[in-house]
């Protein structure tokens, strides 16, 4: 009972983090039609930003500033590196994105050194529920992730900007003809995705209070896996994929026999999903047109 409940809560919280990162991937992929490799590294930048802004001794302020910083960073990256390549071949955009990811990692390592930094944002402690000891930070992560996801779904469904996003992802040319400022929508998408990544960075710090320049690389790739599993371009799909991946990871690390192979298992799931159902669980099949 205790094991089941704690695994469940842990997987929900880890899945929530993955889902939040996957949301950034899936939105950018759906709207800008590109795989933003640097997304994972923005998580790392967010965590470092919290480390820097914690000098103000105010966790809330530090978190807000970190989100703001990542938001601006996301917009800048889009402006400088991706916008000039709009209309170029997907390969060129992809290679640039890898370059940006590499750039962020090496810049972080130059600025902060290769040793990881300790950051304690806030000590939540632990509580007992039904006789099971749970970390409060895990519950907070879970709650915030759920709230953010609901808010984002409502934003996309109900607001004008959100519907413009859907329109751009359906057909960029037609959206432009309907008077939607496509560049602005893409900028907003990057801003939202990057701030979600900053929040993910915060949650990683709550989970384990240290940050290094490679913090975001692995979660970034895994979250992309989650986005693909759920069906890329679909917001509920990203959530589903994230939660599923979090569950798999939590269960796999609990079983000692397969624990070292956790990463391999997760990536194998990706390959199998692509083989069996290339559009993921909730993705729409889209015909390619000339």
């Amino acid at each position: 009972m205790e094991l089941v409940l704690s695994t469940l809560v842990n997987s929900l919280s880890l899945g929530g983090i993955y889902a939040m990162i996957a949301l950034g991937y899936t939105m950018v992929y759906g709207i800008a039609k590109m795989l933003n490799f640097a997304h994972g590294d923005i998580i790392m930048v967010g965590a470092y930003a919290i480390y820097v802004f914690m000098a103000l001794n105010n966790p809330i302020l530090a978190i807000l500033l970190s989100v703001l910083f990542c938001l601006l960073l996301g917009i800048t990256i889009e402006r400088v590196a991706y916008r000039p390549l709009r209309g170029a071949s997907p390969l060129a955009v992809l290679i640039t994105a890898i370059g940006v990811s590499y750039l962020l990692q090496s810049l972080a390592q130059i600025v902060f050194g290769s040793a990881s930094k300790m950051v304690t944002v806030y000590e939540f402690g632990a509580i007992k529920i039904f006789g099971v000891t749970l970390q409060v930070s895990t519950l907070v992560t879970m709650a915030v992730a759920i709230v953010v996801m609901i808010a984002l779904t409502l934003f996309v469904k109900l607001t004008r900007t959100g519907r413009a996003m859907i329109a751009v992802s359906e057909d960029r040319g037609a959206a432009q003809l309907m008077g939607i400022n496509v560049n602005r929508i893409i900028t907003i998408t990057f801003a939202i995705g990057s701030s979600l990544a900053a929040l993910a960075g915060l949650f990683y710090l709550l989970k384990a209070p240290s940050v290094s320049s490679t913090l975001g690389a692995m979660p970034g790739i895994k979250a992309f896996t989650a986005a693909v599993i759920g069906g890329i371009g679909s917001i509920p799909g990203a959530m589903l994929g994230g939660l599923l991946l979090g569950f798999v990871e939590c269960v796999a690390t609990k079983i000692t026999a397969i624990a070292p192979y956790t990463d391999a298992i997760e990536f194998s799931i990706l390959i199998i999903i692509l083989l069996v159902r290339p559009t993921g669980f909730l993705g729409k099949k889209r015909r390619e047109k000339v």
Partner: protein
Amino acid sequence: MNALKNIRWRHYINYIVIGIFTLVFAIITLTGGRLDSSLLFMLEKVAISIVLAVSLSIVVGFLGELSLGHAGFMCVGAYIGGKVAAVLEPSLGNTALNVLVCLVIGGVVAALCGVIIGIPALRLRGDYLAIVTLAFGEIVRSLFQNSSDESFGGTIGLETPRYTKQYLFIIAFLMVLLTLLVVQNFIRSKHGRAVTAIRDNEIAARASGINVTKYKLLAFTISAFFAGIAGVLYSFSNYRVQSANFGYNYSIEILVMVVLGGMGNINGAIISAALITYLDSKLATVLTGDLAVLQNLIYALILIVIVIYNNAPGLKNFRDRYNLTVLLKKIFKHKEDPARRTDDAAKWDVVPTKIEMNEILSIDVKPQDLSSDKPTKGGDK
């Protein structure tokens, strides 16, 4: 004489250059001259990098897809080759035959992995291939890392028997020549043109009756095969194969070589592979500790700047005005025979008087336009 003239030297220049290069060093070693071991190691490393860069350039440059698991295929080749070498050593000894068998087996196993990964990924859009190959690299790494000590050595790595160091680079450069032979002939064949057609417009290629999946898989498999061969060479050149060396970063380094050389340009890939490998080991002695990151920073900037410069639609005019061809023309302009220049400004330079100038103009302008299609130009004179 005519037969010599008809050969397209442009197509063979890289074989000749690399062949002569290899021959020079081979003669030095075979006639008993002992080369410095660090120089030999450098030669091996350069050869391995060239094989990797050329094989990746099939996928990135000619197929137009991105593979981030090239180091993963290399890793498979290195472990399998190293293991086979260790198994064969008692019976075959440290001979060239042993190396050859290992090269074949390592390459084939890597190619098989390429097929297995390629089948699901190549049916989809390019971005998936990038992420699946990346995932493949990580899977391979973690499998070898967690292997038992008897099989592949686990985290410590697999100890490999070393081929006589003095001659390994000759085999490595022979492999470079083999890679070039296969890759260049593939690219210039009907199949290669099908591959480039897929890169330029997949839908049009499909409509023209090209089996897209088959050709994608073919290009991908050839690329994986040679990555495996590079891995086997690596396992012979180093005492120990460690899975940690074949990470994502190494795949990126190979990608940088291809991008720096110019995508779809094999000679460029060769030059930049050699250059980056050389600079790498020189920089490694200068940049130590935290400064080692500067190298990654340079890689990142190379990727971003070169790709944006080469591909941005908004930079087209800029690109046409300032590129290497134009630059070379500007540099070598002075040495050109002024009389052969065609533009009017050039004529002003050579012509001493105005009268002659008029004559030249009247002679020059007309026949140039007519000479190619009308044989009656003699009548004007």
